[in-house]
């Protein structure tokens, strides 16, 4: 999990999706997740995944960084599918659902900074939970950097080697022990900062507005269309059953067009 790569893309990216309002992107992501949940055919789910990849390519999101993250849940889904699915088709559906849902979330996170994603959530959850979410986000980068430094230092002293797993494990445990103490000192420093700044039990995030309303409309219409197609196949299963392959073909076409648009706008 390279959190810094996600954050860099979310904050510094300049794609069409970055210019849309976070609220619109959250609603669009919700609709797309609804589509993944309701998709009942591997062909439809595969079409959905291809179409989403095409959309990401068209708006020039960093696919090389995004796809490994989106494919990572496939490993765990494979284990789950192997262990619990009644047959290969259901297994394939489980894996495809995992990848497609991850793709939706990763697209959202690569185009929207974390605090903007947390902002609407802060209104729903208790104050302390919303504030702790933001604090976790801040601490995550500091601790990830610190842990990287600690591991590098241990590796330079030949402490971590794939040929010596026990020695490597001991070194990692020591690094984690040091990191734990550091995290407590970090929380103390953050407490001091909150006290000095007069924290009264609420960290506020101002929601960003849209820079390009057309981008909002495009994202919402795309997500609504996908959900409508999936629901149509689910509700009118008997009539549309034989045409699920059309969704896969449409998804493949989306991917081809998306890659072409992305390549032309380089």
């Amino acid at each position, binding site marked *: *999990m390279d*959190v810094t790569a996600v954050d860099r893309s979310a904050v510094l990216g300049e794609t069409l999706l970055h210019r849309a309002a976070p609220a619109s992107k959250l609603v669009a992501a919700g609709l797309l997740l609804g589509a993944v949940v309701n998709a*009942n055919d591997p*062909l439809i789910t595969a079409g959905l995944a291809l179409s989403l990849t095409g959309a990401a390519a068209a708006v020039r999101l960093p696919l090389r960084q995004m796809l490994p993250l989106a494919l*990572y*849940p496939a490993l765990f*889904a494979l*284990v789950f599918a192997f*262990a*619990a699915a*009644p*047959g290969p*088709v*259901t297994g394939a559906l*489980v*894996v495809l*659902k*995992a990848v497609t*849902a*991850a*793709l939706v979330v990763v697209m*959202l996170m690569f185009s929207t900074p*974390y605090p903007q*994603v947390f902002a609407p959530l802060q209104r729903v*959850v*208790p104050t*302390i*939970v919303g*504030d*702790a979410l933001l604090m*976790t*986000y*801040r601490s*995550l980068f*500091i601790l*990830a950097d610190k*842990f990287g430094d600690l591991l590098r230092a241990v590796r330079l002293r030949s402490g971590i080697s794939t040929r010596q797993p026990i020695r*490597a*494990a*001991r070194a*990692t*445990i020591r690094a*984690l*022990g040091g*990191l*734990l*103490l550091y995290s*407590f*000192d970090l*929380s*103390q420093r953050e*407490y001091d900062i*909150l*006290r000095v700044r007069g*924290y009264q*039990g609420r960290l506020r995030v101002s929601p960003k507005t849209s820079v390009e309303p057309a981008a909002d409309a495009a994202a919402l219409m795309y997500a609504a269309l996908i959900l409508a197609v999936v629901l149509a196949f689910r509700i*009118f*299963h*008997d009539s549309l*059953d034989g045409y699920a392959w059309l969704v896969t073909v449409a998804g493949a076409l989306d991917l081809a067009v998306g890659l072409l648009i992305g390549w032309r706008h380089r």
Partner: protein
Amino acid sequence: MSHIHIPDGVLPWWLWLGGWLLALGLLAVASRFAERAESRRAVPLIGAVSALVLVSMGSEIVPLAYHINLTVIAGVLLGPWLGAISAFIVVLILALMGHGGITVVGLNTLVIATEMALGWALVRGGARLLGRTRIRPVAAVATAVTLAITTTMLVGIVALAGTGAATRETGALDAETLEFRDPFSDGVLSIGLLGEHHGESEEEHAEHAGEGGLSVGRFAAVVYTLGPIGWLLEALVTAGILGYVARVRPSLVFGEPTAEDQHPRYGDEQGRH
């Protein structure tokens, strides 16, 4: 096996929605208790420990496909109520990285919060019973027991989903009766391609409709085979880290999480100025 790696759209809606509602209820109760302590101290503490858990989940302890969780350590450091808040935050951020479904955030929160609360209770209880000097074996046993219990919870969740999971979530909705039907009950070849019953009578078709569910027995067999390796690794790591922290800063392991003397300043280990 600390959190469920089940993707969105596999478990039935009533199960994941119930998980979300229970998790939000738990968060409301936990926040009440947490706000009794000084929230200015609790907020950064939850943030730092949640970030620590997230960082540890991103690192492999040995070059195997197992990652550590540090959930028992987080439970010991935070206590059950702050731990429940931390569990939700960790699971939500993981889901936003594509690691675990958004719909199962509620169920995952319940599993990890249980892990933190159990870990806290067993380590504190064990240390009180056997003495602080035996914190390493206590932590190792507490971690293994905790993980075994939460893995059983995970199997229980899949069992609750049972045959309903695949039947509902991979089945088509009948617009007339508003009932779900399993499209895979006719066999692999008919899936979404042919859509015919291949000469099956309606009775035979109805009979097969309930067979497309999750195989709980096979799932339990796989989980209980692979799980103990992870439990052992996590137990060793937890014992190592808690033993180290108990030696250099015992108040973190044996004291209250938001107490003033937990956070000594540099050069002033007594916290006095």
